[in-house]
């Protein structure tokens, strides 16, 4: 190897080194440590040493802990409710952003802006919106106009039926900007000739959307869907700020919140690690299936 090639090789690794070191220290090392912990019974707020219990923590989660399953159910419900609505609204916004010509930057910034706000701030604002007696939404729902349409005030966060949809609605407002901008970028990549040709052939807007936009946007769409599913499985801040007690009847206590409570309120580090690894495995499996689907398409 010539000295020039050697120095180029070294330079490549030198550029990568800072990130890789941090990645090893703050991602890989805790991941491995957590995996080891998941086989231990470790009540960290105790002088007792950690005890190896094999797959005991995994068995507890799958067979003996009803709250684990309830938290998983809440997480799945959040994902199932939030994914389609986020994709549909993001797509609608993206189509709008693509067609707007005047002050396009302003509209893009407006759509993206909520995602820049911290989840704690968003949560506190929306808690006020949802307040049963003093909230903004119920203020409108109590008005004569709303009454004319048969609308009534809702117990947004305090009813079993409305708590999770309320979290989803807040999440939509907060988060939809990011997928909308990605989809918009994807829409810009579609050659306009396709639309021109289709229009000449007499295709209407509906046909153009289903026959050109969707197929051409498929890779971007799949990427957005995968990222949203991963994000939905990891939901925590939104539910925790809006419904700190896990909502009525724990309907909004998602798995990450349950893991957090197990680790930092019950100090059961081994069990919390096992649940984290189960969540990690679920996300990994779902992602692999989707990436496969993406590749085959």
């Amino acid at each position, binding site marked *: 190897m010539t000295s020039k090639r050697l120095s180029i090789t070294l330079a490549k690794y030198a550029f990568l080194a800072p990130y890789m070191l941090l990645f090893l220290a703050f991602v890989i090392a805790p991941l491995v440590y957590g995996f080891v912990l998941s086989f231990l019974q470790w009540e960290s707020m105790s002088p007792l040493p950690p005890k190896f219990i094999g797959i005991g923590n995994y068995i507890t989660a799958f067979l003996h802990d009803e709250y684990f399953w309830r938290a998983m159910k809440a997480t799945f419900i959040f994902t199932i409710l939030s994914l389609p609505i986020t994709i549909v609204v993001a797509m609608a916004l993206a189509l709008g952003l693509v067609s707007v010509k005047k002050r396009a930057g302003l509209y893009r910034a407006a759509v993206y802006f909520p995602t820049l706000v911290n989840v704690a701030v968003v949560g506190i604002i929306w*808690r006020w919106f949802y307040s049963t007696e003093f909230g903004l939404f119920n203020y409108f729902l109590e008005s004569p106009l709303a009454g004319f349409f048969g609308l009534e005030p809702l117990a947004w966060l305090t009813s079993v039926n409305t708590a999770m949809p309320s979290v989803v609605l807040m999440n939509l407002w907060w988060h939809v900007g990011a997928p909308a901008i990605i989809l918009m970028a994807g829409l810009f990549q579609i050659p306009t000739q396709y639309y021109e040709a289709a229009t000449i052939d007499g295709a209407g807007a509906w046909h153009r959307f289903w026959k050109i936009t969707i197929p051409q946007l498929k890779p971007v769409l799949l990427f957005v869907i995968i990222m949203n599913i991963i994000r939905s499985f990891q939901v925590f801040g939104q539910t925790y700020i809006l419904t700190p007690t896990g909502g*009525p009847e724990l309907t909004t206590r998602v798995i990450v919140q349950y893991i957090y409570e197990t680790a930092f309120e019950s100090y059961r580090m081994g069990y919390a690690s096992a649940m984290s690894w189960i969540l990690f495995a679920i996300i990994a499996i779902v992602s692999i299936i989707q990436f496969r689907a993406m590749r085959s398409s």
Partner: protein
Amino acid sequence: MRFEKIKQLPVGRIVFIGFYLIICGSYVFSIKGDVIGDEDVVQLRFWNGFTGRDGDTMTAMVKRFNAENEDIHITVQRMQWPTYYNKLFVAGQAQREPDIFISHAKTLPRFVRADFLRPIDDLISGQNGIDIDDIDENVWDAVEVNRKHVGLPIDVHPLGLYYNTDLFEEAGIVDDEGKAKPPTNLAEFVEALEKLKRDKDGDGRVDQWGFMFTLYPMHVIHSWMHQFGGGDYFDEDLTECFIDNPQNIKAMELVVDLVHEKKLIPTPMPRDTAGWDGFKQGKVAMFLGGIFMLNDLKAVEMHDPENQIKYAAAFTPTVGSEPAMWADSHVACISSTIDEGKVNAAWRFLKYISDNSLEWADGGQVPVRKSILATEEFKNMPIQYAFAQQLPYVKYYPKLPYSLEFERSFRNHTSSASIKAITPKEALVKIQKEMNEVIERDKEIYGRAKLN
């Protein structure tokens, strides 16, 4: 020629490096002066979660202690309570905890189990001790774990009633002299709720409430459970939870009745501060809260005196058969890993805070030393004094090494019942079931249910 060479020197870089070295050097020396210091001076690290006005009071007390005790230097670190406990716990795990720290009484059993605390019985009864009879019995009992007192309580914060005197007088809830009369029993409480719930502008919406829950209704529910004669949730040996009993159901049914049947109290939204905010704005007439809320009222008084409401404090109304109210305490603790040579210095500091707890009271707290509670100065602090009258009846949460798990279970299910997502009976069954599971798990791990 030589001058030419000097001219070529990178003057800018030299100046920059020079400044850099000076700044670094002065920082290193400042650390040395502050932390390492004189070898004859005992250095102690003290952590607490007092970040409001109480934090300023505590810091001022520490400064004065440092000035008055040249052989001891206390370095304070203060942070928000939620962050504080996690940091303290992690520091303890790494055996880097501070020499002295503040804990709430309810957290002590957890720290005992983790072996974080040095008992103070030998120190309090030693030469430079404190007369134990001078400490309120209820509070002194709250810091006893496994027959050892594991910290020195510096205050007690019971639930008490704040009420807006103007709104009371406006609603005609007055005594013979025409002064606002706070409710003392259930009938008076309900009557006050009825009179104080008002639609002032006639738009069909309630814009003034008699009472609202703030944050979580759990402290009020805990108080009411004790008032109805329930309240003792576990047996003495912690082998069983029996929170599901008729008295506790009755207490919870009262919450549901007042909120959902009589509609005299708005539905409590967990962690909602609307009740407290409403009280400060004059839209909520009564508030059941801790003495620590006083600082918030004083802050309004300081920054916005024109909009300051007129308020007073009173005994928590007895809605059941006997007076009882939730309480907790800030407890000054000494780390179990402290150098033996530093123990006396640490104790001197703890005693100093206790001896000077009148100043602490002025910072918005209720002291626990009877001699201080009896002083004229303390009696002239009307809110603190009103809260202090409740000391014989205070009820702490049970002493549990799994206090956070109990609190979470209690908070979540009582919140669910108060919004009518489940019935009071269901809530108590759930808490009981969860806690009995925790007890069983604890037995499996430790071989016994009691501490240690």
